């Protein structure tokens, strides 16, 4: 099926940043201070323009997306499909290998494509403060963009894996070179954790290939495609359970779910602000996206077997993450960013819980939560970045009374904080409520226990709010942030920060009041997905008609 737009929009979407990367690499670095400054500005704006075009492409996709087609395991209803043979050769020993360049999107991936485009665009603005190795930074940034976008549109498992790994490397360098004091530790930790997950994925992928004879994820979803006597043939076999678990752990590391989460706080604390934004905003979603795109539909029988375990993982992540976040007020470096990193663990727990529910509300809520967490947490990290840029510290105990010094900033911050708490009228509420409503049907007690996460979430957020923004300003911050007035004229936000924060705030409020534009995108696919999984899994079906 040809792309419905007459040009391969997904390819453009994915590889546009590569073009941007080449452009950035071609910008000559001047010899003296001023010409170098000029070339930095050029590189920054190249990145802004490229990501902006990407955003526009994503919006074009959104506008032309047909909401009536389900996708999921039906290759003919994927949209904007591009399918070419990429590698098709006979190899000695391993035999015939056919790998396709197979891109396409459905309701499960469209929200993620939009999210990636939005987050990559807004995260460029906090990148403006990077002064060291600007060329390498933006080149890596754009490469990372390609990798992430590729993961969300690839339908060939091998291609998916390639993009997955492609994303890993720039991230490693971005943390390892432009990070904080313990950057090497954080970078290598991130790298090894993710690599472990990738290895699991690779093994299962190869096994699936020999069982199915194709790398197409869609082919793998159909049990009839499994060759007789191949390792994954049949249903409810031990090897399938093991394979599912391997995939699940691989993705859970990325989510990250407790107990595979400890790379996240370190990576966040050390990463520069924009990279934290991307890490929390997009990268974490790849884990849950992988579950719903690959792990669940390929091994539905194993999902049924492990379903309650998955729900437990979600519930523990929610509560444990929230407790750890609360604990940051008392333990350790009392780092603002670490607190938000743990809150991410907690919020991504909602996604896992929602997925485990296998109900339309739960899964829609989970995908919506992925999107919302992407926007909200991006905002939170940028908010931390704003004061870090000014005060060069992120200690929770070192501030106070910022509300008087920076009123607009505080106002915008409140939107993000309250959205994270799950205040109605902001997008976080709807997705969390949907997750809860869905999950309660399948796992009532676990859901009630997860409810504690809401209270704890409010506790650590309000505590932070009080410590950092309320009260009186310590004397050391009384003077202007920047005495020269060049970098930060005035105390409050500067235009660049408005550009990054205000669009996100608008999205959060808009989707909080009127979520249907996002829900309608995924409805058909989610319902189809639920129907597809239904024979294998536990669904709270007290309600007649469901």
């Amino acid at each position, binding site marked *: 099926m040809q792309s419905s737009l007459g040009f391969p929009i997904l390819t453009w979407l994915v590889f546009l940043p590569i073009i941007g990367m080449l452009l950035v690499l071609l910008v000559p670095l001047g010899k003296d201070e001023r010409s170098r400054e000029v070339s930095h500005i050029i590189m920054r704006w190249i990145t802004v323009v490229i990501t902006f075009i990407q955003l526009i492409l994503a919006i074009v996709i959104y506008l032309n997306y047909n909401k009536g087609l389900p996708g999921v395991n039906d290759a003919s209803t994927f949209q904007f499909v591009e399918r070419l043979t990429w590698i098709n050769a006979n190899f000695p020993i391993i035999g015939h290998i056919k790998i396709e360049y197979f891109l396409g999107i459905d309701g499960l991936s469209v929200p993620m494509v939009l999210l990636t485009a939005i987050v990559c665009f807004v995260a460029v603005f906090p990148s403006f403060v990077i002064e060291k190795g600007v060329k390498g930074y933006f080149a890596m940034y754009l490469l990372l963009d390609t990798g992430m976008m590729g993961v969300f549109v690839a339908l060939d498992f091998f291609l998916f894996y390639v993009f997955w790994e492609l994303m890993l490397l720039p991230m490693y360098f971005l943390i390892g070179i432009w990070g904080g004091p313990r950057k090497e530790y954080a970078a290598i930790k991130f790298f090894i954790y993710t690599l472990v997950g990738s290895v699991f994925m690779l093994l299962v992928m190869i096994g699936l290939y020999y069982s199915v004879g194709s790398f197409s994820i869609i082919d793998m979803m159909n049990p009839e495609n499994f060759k007789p006597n191949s390792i994954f043939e049949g249903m409810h076999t031990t090897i399938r359970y093991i394979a599912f678990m391997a995939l699940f752990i691989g993705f859970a590391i990325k989510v990250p779910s407790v107990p595979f989460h400890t790379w996240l706080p370190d990576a966040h604390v050390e990463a520069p602000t924009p990279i934290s934004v991307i890490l929390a905003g997009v990268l974490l979603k790849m884990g849950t996206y992988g579950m719903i795109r690959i792990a669940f539909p390929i091994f539905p029988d194993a999902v049924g077997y492990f379903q309650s375990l998955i729900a437990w993982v979600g519930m523990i992540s929610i509560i444990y993450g929230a407790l750890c976040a609360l604990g*940051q007020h008392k333990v350790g470096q009392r780092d603002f960013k670490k607190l938000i990193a743990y809150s991410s663990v907690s919020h991504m727990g909602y996604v896992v819980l929602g997925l485990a529910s296998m109900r339309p509300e739960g899964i829609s809520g989970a995908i919506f939560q992925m999107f919302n967490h992407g926007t909200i947490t991006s905002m939170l990290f940028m908010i931390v970045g704003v004061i870090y840029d000014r005060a060069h510290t992120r200690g929770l105990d070192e501030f106070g009374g910022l509300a008087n010094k920076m009123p607009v900033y505080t106002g915008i911050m409140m939107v993000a904080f309250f959205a994270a708490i799950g205040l109605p009228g902001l997008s976080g509420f709807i997705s969390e409520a949907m997750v809860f409503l869905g999950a309660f049907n399948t796992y009532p007690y676990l859901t009630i226990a997860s409810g504690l996460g809401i209270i704890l979430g409010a506790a650590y957020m309000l505590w932070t*709010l009080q410590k950092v923004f*309320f*009260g009186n300003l310590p004397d050391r911050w009384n003077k202007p942030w920047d005495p020269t007035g060049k970098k930060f004229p005035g105390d409050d936000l500067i235009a660049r920060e408005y550009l990054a924060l205000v669009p996100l705030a608008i999205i959060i409020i808009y989707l909080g009041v009127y979520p249907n534009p996002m829900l309608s995108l995924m409805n058909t696919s989610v319902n189809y997905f639920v129907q597809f999984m239904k024979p294998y899994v536990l669904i709270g079906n007290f309600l007649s008609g469901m």
Partner: protein
Amino acid sequence: MSGEVLLYIGTAILLFPLLSFVINLFFGKRIGKASSIVATSILGVVLILSFIIFYSKVFGHFENKLVQNGNILLEVSDKILQIKFTWLDLQTIQLKVGIGIDNLAAIMLVVVALISFLVHLFSIEYMSGDPRYSRYFAYLGLFTFSMNGIVLANNFLFMYIFWELVGISSYLLIGFWYEKKSASDAGKKAFLVNRVGDLGFFIGIMILYFSYGTLLFDDIFGSIAQGRLPFDSETILTLAGIFVFCGAIGKSAQFPLHVWLPDAMEGPTPVSALIHAATMVAAGVYLTARVYAMFTASALSFIASIGAITAFLAATIALTQVDFKRVLAYSTVSQLGYMIMSLGVGAYTMGFFHLVTHAWFKAALFLASGSVIHAMHHAAHHLGDHHTDPQDIRNMGGLRKTMPWTYRTFLFVTLAICGVPLTSGFLSKDGILAGTLAYAQLTGGWHWLIPIAGFASAGLTAFYMFRLLILSFHGEPKTNVAKHTKENNWIILLPLFVLSILSFWFFYSPNPLDAHQGWFPKAIVQPKSVVPDEQQWEFLLINGYNQNEHTFQQVEHASHHYINGFEEAMHHAHYPAMILSLLIAGTGILFAFLFYQFKILNPDTIVNQFPLLYKVSYKKWYFDEIYNATVVAATVGFAKISALFDLKIIDGLVNGSAWVARNLGYFIGHFDNIVIDGLVNLIANLTGFFGSMVRYLQTGRVQTYVAFAIVGLILLVYFLF
């Protein structure tokens, strides 16, 4: 007016305060002082619209009508006017929401709009000079919007949404002076304590959603009435009711979550009047009334007990408090307990009636206290005295002379809250006490404790309210500040007058001794319970009475017949309850005068005689201490443990495995170096040897390369031909 028009007006009422919020938030700085005028005039419009709705709905008649307009369904009947539309569309599941106006909502709208308007008016003067003047009015707008949302919600989802939104506006307003740590602490505490209640509320919602797949009140109650129970179990139905009631426990500051309300007095006083006395805290009562039909007998007993405990507990605490606003706060808690208790025992109408009357006089009390504090504050400021706490009643006294009008209104509304005849307070309180008596008679056993708690609190209320009045207004000024107070201007006094006038009986009933002769009981009739008959009190079952047609007119005709056994018992209990409550209130007032006015009895002797009792009361039954020591400490402790666990154990494991892997790596590295590398090196050396041979060819000289190229050419030609 036709039903559709009323619904549009209702939508306007909902959205106008939001407009005020947006205007003041974004343009407040620019328009400066005018922000108060903008906000107040918007609220004025809302007030007028609310009166229109009130009049049309309560005294009007509507033809049944259904209008489907695209996604939006308009439903008009005598019972309720409502809009339903799909908000969350998941194709297979469509979550419908909407707004509905029935008599309950119509009356509540007027309460909210009027008090909100008066508080806006009051604040123009009270808040003048505050650096965040416009922000204050923005928050008030947000609050009024959310409160109207609660009132108009016809489904659990909207109810919950606006429930949280009032929570957040309350948080913002309590912590309005956030430079004070105590203020931001109080805001945080209020929000978190409410969150605990809200979690219960949300669990209740989840149970109901799971069972019925919808969140509209109509549909849920309809399904229960058809005998479909959650999890097919009456116990779960009871539990669902109690969980939903948890929301009310939080918001209406009922035992055991009442601890946030007194602290909330850190907010500006008009806010206390609006949110923490009259409207938001009454939302819990409103919610209980709204979903009254789904409570089983057990759930109602639970509600009644919680109410009774709260009423008594808060009254005992109020006895010894010295902060003007805290006394009023505990009084509020106590009165809210009354309302909840009333709903719990089955006196539905009287409970809601008390909500309305209490809203007027409690708002008046708070605004009067605001007037006093404002005057004290100005006097202290004038004298340059920054040590005298303007809220401490031990610093007042003699204000009767300096602030005569405030005193008069305060006196009148104090009489109202004590339940003295000719006031609205008497009507509602008397009704509630009669209800508890009837309830105890009909059920017996330990339920007799409920009327006892009710009467005891009535007496205590009379005592502490007069203690407050006497200590602050009578006698001689105890400080210089009190002596120099001045009466406030009309902007402050006008709301007081309006509210105290509304506390006269004649607004509600022609007979100052019996509320049942007024319009109120006819407008607010107890909804027919939808729970299975065997799960409800027999005396609450409505006999031969079609709840779907309880219009004003029909009820008027039916008023001589009791709708159920409870009504009858309550009617019989009316006079005993009245006499008893008058006696007890009179005793309370008398003692207050004996103690504080005539000084015949010395309060200190009592304190010395019962130090424990005094301490318990003064320390608020140690609730804060107990919570801090248990729940808060445990949570923070768990948080600390988790954070440390994460840092040391999980991360330790990760780093430990990294360490193991590294050392394994070293070991393998050495093994590699010696054994495997030996082999590899051999091969490598061989390769290297050949390489170095070839290397001689690589001289780096262009000439050599040319020579090779030519040799190559020759060979090529040779082999090709």
